[in-house]
């Protein structure tokens, strides 16, 4: 008896695990979060118009949790949808806040229901379209071209696609070289190292890393970011070489540098 009981539990366990995994592994088979929601909504076995969005949000969040637990990596848009559904859920559950502007939870839920219904409708339409009789499969065009006279005119068949591709190619030629121009916003570590080597000779006192950034790189956020990273890397390099000391008093506090006192 106990044996049976244990094996029973194991069976159940395996089965439920398989179920969960099957759902999650299938994530590759879904065409995005809306598609997944549509699939989940079918489990409610009601007309799409009557689907409970709250329940659906719940199911989706469980799904995402389960995927996390199994360490399945979900694409970003699945997580974005999860965040949105969590938000929607809270709106649907909490009493409406009169000071809150924007659409109500019901409005948002109604739109989601509309999106699901529309996606399903387009799926159906696509299937009906493909089920139609098709040229070259079910009905046919004239199989023979007529050659009756020898008069020839040349007709050029270049399409808009050809035209666009041609243009794209001429533009791509321009685009290729400028890739190096884009490096304009990148301050290399070599540059930083060069600059630091010239400056550290005078750094007798602790000084903020920021002041080592070149003038021109301090204002533009992108440039500043690149220069900060390179200067920091260069500083580490110099510390390794024994030429510099580095310290930071606290997390996110300024990083400070000074010349290493010769021993």
């Amino acid at each position, binding site marked *: 008896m106990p044996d049976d009981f244990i094996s029973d539990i194991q069976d159940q366990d395996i089965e439920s695990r398989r179920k969960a995994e099957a759902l999650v592994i299938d994530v590759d088979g879904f065409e995005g979060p809306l598609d997944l929601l549509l699939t989940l909504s079918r489990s409610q076995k009601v007309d799409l118009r009557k689907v409970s969005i709250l329940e659906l949000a719940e199911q989706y969040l469980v799904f995402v949790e389960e995927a996390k637990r199994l360490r399945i990596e979900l694409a970003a848009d699945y997580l974005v949808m999860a965040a949105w559904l969590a938000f929607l859920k809270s709106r649907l559950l909490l009493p409406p806040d009169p000071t809150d502007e924007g659409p109500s939870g019901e409005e948002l839920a109604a739109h989601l229901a509309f999106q699901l219904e529309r996606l399903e409708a387009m799926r159906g339409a696509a299937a009906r379209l493909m089920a139609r009789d098709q040229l070259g499969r079910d009905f046919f065009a*004239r199989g023979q071209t007529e050659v009756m006279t020898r008069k020839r005119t040349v007709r050029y068949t270049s399409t808009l696609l050809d035209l666009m591709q041609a243009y794209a190619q001429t533009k791509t030629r321009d685009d290729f070289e400028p890739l190096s121009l884009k490096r304009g916003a990148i301050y290399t570590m070599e540059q930083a190292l060069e600059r630091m080597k010239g400056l550290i000779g005078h750094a007798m006192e602790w000084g903020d890393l920021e002041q080592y950034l070149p003038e021109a790189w301090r204002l533009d956020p992108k440039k500043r970011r690149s220069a900060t990273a390179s200067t920091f890397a260069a500083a580490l390099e110099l510390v390794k070489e024994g030429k510099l000391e580095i310290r930071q008093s606290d997390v996110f506090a300024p990083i400070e540098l000074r010349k290493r006192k010769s021993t």
Partner: protein
Amino acid sequence: MEDEKLESLFEAPPMAEQERMIEAVLFASADPLSTAEIESRMPHGSDVAEAMVYVRKRYQGRGIELVKVGDGWAFRTANDLGFLMQKEQVEYRKLSRAAIETLAIIAYHQPATRAEIEEIRGVSVSRGTIDMLMELGWVKIGRRRMTPGRPVTFIVTQGFLDHFGLETSRDLPGVKELRESGLLDNRPAPAVFGDDDLGEGDQDDMFS
């Protein structure tokens, strides 16, 4: 006076003769020809539109039928006889689900922008999907939408209608019901603060 003379010189052939001519012209072309194209080949004074009615009637229920495709006309074998033409069948590359859905969305919602297609499918349109539909000759670029950014729109082609045996895109299966139930409306999402931004952090924003 001059005109009258010219007129009589180029008197239109009798209707029966016009029918024969239309048969011949359409028969020689594998692609649909527009009424204007047919007219340009017919003798001066022909009434293509009228002759077409007779020709169409003549071929009704035959093995070859006259079908209307967009603003063009073509002879096609009758749909119920496809089984005889196994040798002529063309192998079409099997379309992906994404491609089929994208095609359907363009057909039912046209003109449709890329953003609208993505909104409906809830997933981004992969590179090459629209490209492929254009290469198949089923989708082409329509007018730009007069909204900010003036996005390009996509519409289906006569080749699409021809391939699926549709006279116009109003004959798409179920299009009337879909329209009536509001499922073809372009209903924008209710705007929630920051809702749109959730996914798309722009690089430039990140750094400022």
